[in-house]
C-alpha cells in the first residue's frame, strides 16, 4: 500500500491555451504505479493536449508535473523519455519510408554509432514474442496495415523500457480482434508494475482496460472515479453533458430504384494485388447497405472504385442507371455521390484551409456560394456557421485552419460537408471512427436521415452492433469477395462473424 501513496505521475494545475481556445484549464491528474487510467472526453476536450504536455511535446502555460513525487522539468520529448514516459500518439509517429527496425531505435542515443542491427533485431523479436506482438522487422512502415503500425508503436515503447505509457485513442483504428490483443498487452504491462493512461471514445473499453476513469469537458476535469463505480451510460452523460441515446429510431424502409450497381467489378490494391474480385452489389434509394468485414479485405478499394478514386480492372459501375465505370471523381461527384473517406487526414480535408473553405469545398462551383467565377464569402460564412452549429464542430471560428482542430472535429467537418453535397449515394467509410459518443450518435442519425430522404447509403463499419443498428441490408466482404448479402433485421451476429472469417454458411452448418 505504501507505494500507492506516492503517485507515479502527478500533474498539478495544468493550463494550456491555443489562439482562441483554452485546451486545458487547471487540470489535476494522478496516476499510480501499476494502474491504468482511462481518460475520456468529447472531441476537442483537451485530452491529447494534456498528454502532449506530459510527453514533452507541448509546454504548459501553467502547472507542474511530478514523477515519483519529484518535480520534473519536462522541456522536450527527450526529457520525458528519460523519465520513462512513452506515448503512442493519435497520429502515429513513425517515419513511413523507414523500416520497423529503424523506427524502433529512432532517437535512442544509447545505440552505438553504427547500430548493431542484429542486437536490435534480437531484442525486438524477444519483446515481440513475449507480448505476442507479431511484426516483420524489415518491412517499411508504409507497407504495414494500421494495426501493424500500432504494434510497432507499442514495441517502440517496450524497447525503451517506458514505465509510463500513454495511449491516445489506440483502438480507434483497430479491428475488434486487434483491440482485444491490445488489451492483453496493456494488462501484461500493468502486471509488471507499469502504469498507463488510455484515451478512448468506446465506453465498453473503459471497463475492459482501466482501473480508474477521469473525464474532461472543455478542458476541465468534470469527474474522476474508480471504474467499478460507474456505468457507460453515466460516463457518456458526463462527457457530453446530456443524455445519449444508444438507440436510433428507424422508419420501415421504402426502397426505390437501384441507385448504385456494381456488376462483376474487380480492382487491384496499391501493391498491385487483386483487392476486389468479381463484386456484384446493388444499392437502392432509401436504403442503407452495410459492408461488414475485417479491415483490409477490400473495403477501402470498394469505396474508392465507387467514388472514382481507383480504376476497376473489369466489370461495370452504374450510378443512377448511368455507366460510370472508371469515370473521374469529379464526374462522380456531379452524379451526387458523396464520400466520407477512411483516411480523413490526407484525403478528406485540406489542413491549411479554413473550416469554412473546407465546408464549401464541394459546392463552391455553383449557387448559392458562387456567382460565376466569383465566390461569395458572406454566403460561405453563413453556411459554415450553420453547419458548425448543426454538427457541433468545436472550432474557435469558421476561419480557423482545419489542421488546428482536434481529430474528431476534423472528422465532423468532413461529415458536415459531405452530407450537404449528397444527392444520390453516400459512401461512408468508418464515419464514426475517432468520434465521441455524442458525435457518433449524430453520425448514425444523419445516415439514417439520409436514407429516409430517399438516398442510398453505402456504409462501412467494423462495429457489428453499429452496422446492424444502422443498416437495412448487410453484405459481408472477405478477401475482396462478397460472401453473402442479407437483411439486417434478424441477422445473426455469429453467422456474420463466420462469414467475415471466410467460412461460408454452408460449411459451418
Amino acid at each position, binding site marked *: 500500500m505504501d507505494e500507492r501513496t506516492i503517485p507515479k505521475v502527478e500533474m498539478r494545475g495544468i493550463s494550456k491555451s491555443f489562439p482562441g481556445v483554452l485546451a486545458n484549464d487547471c487540470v489535476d491528474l494522478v496516476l499510480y504505479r501499476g494502474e491504468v487510467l482511462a481518460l475520456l472526453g468529447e472531441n476537442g476536450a483537451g485530452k491529447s493536449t494534456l498528454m502532449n504536455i506530459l510527453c514533452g511535446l507541448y509546454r504548459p502555460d501553467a502547472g507542474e508535473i511530478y514523477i515519483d513525487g519529484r518535480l520534473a522539468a519536462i522541456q522536450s520529448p*527527450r526529457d520525458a523519455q528519460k523519465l520513462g514516459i512513452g506515448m503512442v500518439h493519435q497520429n502515429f*509517429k513513425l517515419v*513511413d519510408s*523507414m523500416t520497423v527496425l529503424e523506427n524502433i531505435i*529512432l532517437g535512442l*542515443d544509447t545505440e*552505438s554509432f553504427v547500430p548493431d542491427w542484429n542486437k536490435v533485431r534480437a531484442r525486438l523479436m524477444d519483446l515481440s514474442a513475449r507480448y505476442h506482438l507479431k511484426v516483420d522487422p524489415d518491412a517499411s512502415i508504409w507497407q504495414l496495415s494500421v494495426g501493424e503500425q500500432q504494434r510497432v508503436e507499442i514495441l517502440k515503447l517496450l524497447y525503451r523500457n517506458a514505465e509510463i505509457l500513454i495511449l491516445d485513442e489506440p483502438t480507434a483504428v483497430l479491428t475488434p480482434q486487434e483491440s482485444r490483443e491490445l488489451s492483453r498487452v496493456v494488462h501484461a504491462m500493468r502486471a509488471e508494475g507499469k502504469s498507463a493512461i488510455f484515451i478512448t471514445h468506446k465506453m465498453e473499453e473503459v471497463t475492459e482496460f482501466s482501473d480508474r476513469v477521469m473525464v474532461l469537458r472543455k478542458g476541465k476535469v468534470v469527474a474522476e472515479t474508480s471504474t467499478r463505480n460507474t456505468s457507460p451510460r453515466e460516463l457518456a452523460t458526463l462527457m457530453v453533458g446530456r443524455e445519449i441515446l444508444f438507440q436510433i429510431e428507424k422508419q420501415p424502409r421504402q426502397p426505390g430504384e437501384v441507385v448504385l450497381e456494381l456488376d462483376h467489378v474487380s480492382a487491384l490494391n496499391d501493391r498491385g494485388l487483386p483487392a476486389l474480385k468479381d463484386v456484384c452489389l446493388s444499392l437502392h434509394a432509401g436504403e442503407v447497405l452495410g459492408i461488414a468485414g475485417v479491415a483490409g479485405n477490400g473495403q477501402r478499394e470498394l469505396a474508392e472504385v465507387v467514388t472514382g478514386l481507383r480504376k476497376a480492372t473489369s466489370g461495370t459501375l452504374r450510378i443512377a442507371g448511368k455507366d460510370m465505370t472508371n469515370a473521374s471523381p469529379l464526374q462522380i461527384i456531379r452524379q451526387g455521390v458523396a464520400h466520407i473517406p477512411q483516411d480523413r487526414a490526407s484525403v478528406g480535408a485540406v489542413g491549411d484551409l479554413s473550416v469554412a473553405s473546407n465546408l464549401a469545398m464541394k459546392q463552391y462551383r455553383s449557387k448559392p456560394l458562387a456567382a460565376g467565377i466569383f465566390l461569395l464569402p458572406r454566403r460561405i460564412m453563413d453556411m459554415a456557421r450553420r453547419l458548425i452549429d448543426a454538427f457541433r464542430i468545436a472550432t474557435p471560428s469558421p476561419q480557423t485552419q482545419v489542421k488546428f482542430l482536434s481529430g474528431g472535429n476534423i472528422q465532423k467537418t468532413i461529415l458536415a460537408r459531405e452530407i450537404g453535397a449528397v444527392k444520390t449515394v453516400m459512401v461512408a467509410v468508418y464515419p464514426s471512427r475517432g468520434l465521441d459518443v455524442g458525435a457518433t450518435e449524430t453520425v448514425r442519425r444523419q445516415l439514417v436521415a439520409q436514407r429516409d430522404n430517399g438516398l442510398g447509403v453505402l456504409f462501412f463499419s467494423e462495429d457489428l452492433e453499429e452496422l446492424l443498428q444502422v443498416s437495412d441490408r448487410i453484405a459481408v466482404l472477405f478477401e475482396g469477395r462478397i460472401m453473402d448479402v442479407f437483411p439486417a433485421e434478424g441477422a445473426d451476429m455469429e453467422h456474420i462473424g463466420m462469414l467475415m472469417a471466410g467460412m461460408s454458411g454452408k460449411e459451418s452448418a
Partner: protein
Amino acid sequence: MDLLTSILTITIRAGTSLTLATIGEILTERSGILNLGVEGIMLLGALSAFATVFYSHSILLALLVAMAVGALMALLHAFLTTTMRANQVVSGLSITLFGTGFASFLGQRLGPATNNFRLVGLRAERITPLAPAGLKDIPILGALVQQDLLTYLTYLLIPLAWFFLYKTRPGLWLRSVGEDPQTADAMGIDVVRTRYRYTVLGGILIALGGAHLSLSYTPGWSENITGGRGWIVIALVIFSMWNPARAIWGALLFGGINAVQFRLQASGTNIPANFLNMMPYIGTILVLVVMTWWEALSKRVGAPAALGTSYMREDK
C-alpha cells in the same frame, strides 16, 4: 597520355567542385532544408579562397577561409529558415543574389592597387595535381591519380558521406528529420539543431567546391567563375536521388561533356563556341529529365518528404 585518359582527367577535375557541392547540398536537403544559395556560396567560396591565397600564399589558409565563409552564409540560411521560419526558397535565392553581387563587388575592390584594385587577371599559388611517377602513365588509372588534393579528398568523401547517411545512427537521425520532423521531434531528436548542423556542414562543402574552381580548375578569379554550376548542383542532387554515392555520376556527366566540348573547341571545329559552351548544361538537363522520370516510375524513392517545410513544435 592517350585521348581517353586525358579527357577523363579533365572530366574528374571538372567534376570535383560539383561533387563536393552536391554532397554538401544532399546533406542539407536530407535535413529538410532546401538551400538555393549554392551558386552564391560557391562564388563567395571561390572569391575568398583566391583573395586569401593571393595575399597569404597559403593554400591551407585559403581553404579554411572559404570554409568559414561557406559556414557563415549557410548559418544565415539556417537562421532565416528555422529560427525565423522564412520561406526556404526566398531565403536561398536571396543568398544567391547577395553572394553573386557581393563576390563581383569584392572582386573589384580586394585586388592590389597595381591592378586597379581588381582581382581579375592575377595569378597566385594553386593546388597542383599530384602526379605519382609510374602511376600517371597507366591508361585510365592515370586519370584517377593525376589529381589535386581536393579531388583526393572528394574520393574519400563520397563513400564516407554514403556510409554516414545510411549506416550510422546520426545519419538515421538526419534522414528522419528530413522525412518527418514531427516524428523525429517526438522521438527526442532535436530537429532545429540537426537542421542547423547539416545546413552549415553543407555550406562548408559547397564553398570548398567553389574554392576548387579558383584554386585549381581555373586558377584565379574571374567574374562568374562558377558559370552557373550552383544551379547544376541543385539539379544533380535530384539526379542522385539524395544519395551521395550517386552524386558522382551526375558530376562526371557534366564534367565529361565539358571536357569533350573543350577538346572540340581546341581542335578548331567550326561549331560555334557559344553552342559548345552550352552543351554541358543542355546535356545534363536532358539526362536528368529522362533519368528522374525513369526513377520516379520505377521506385518509391524521392525527395525527403519534408523538404522545404518549416517545423515548429506546437504548430501543426
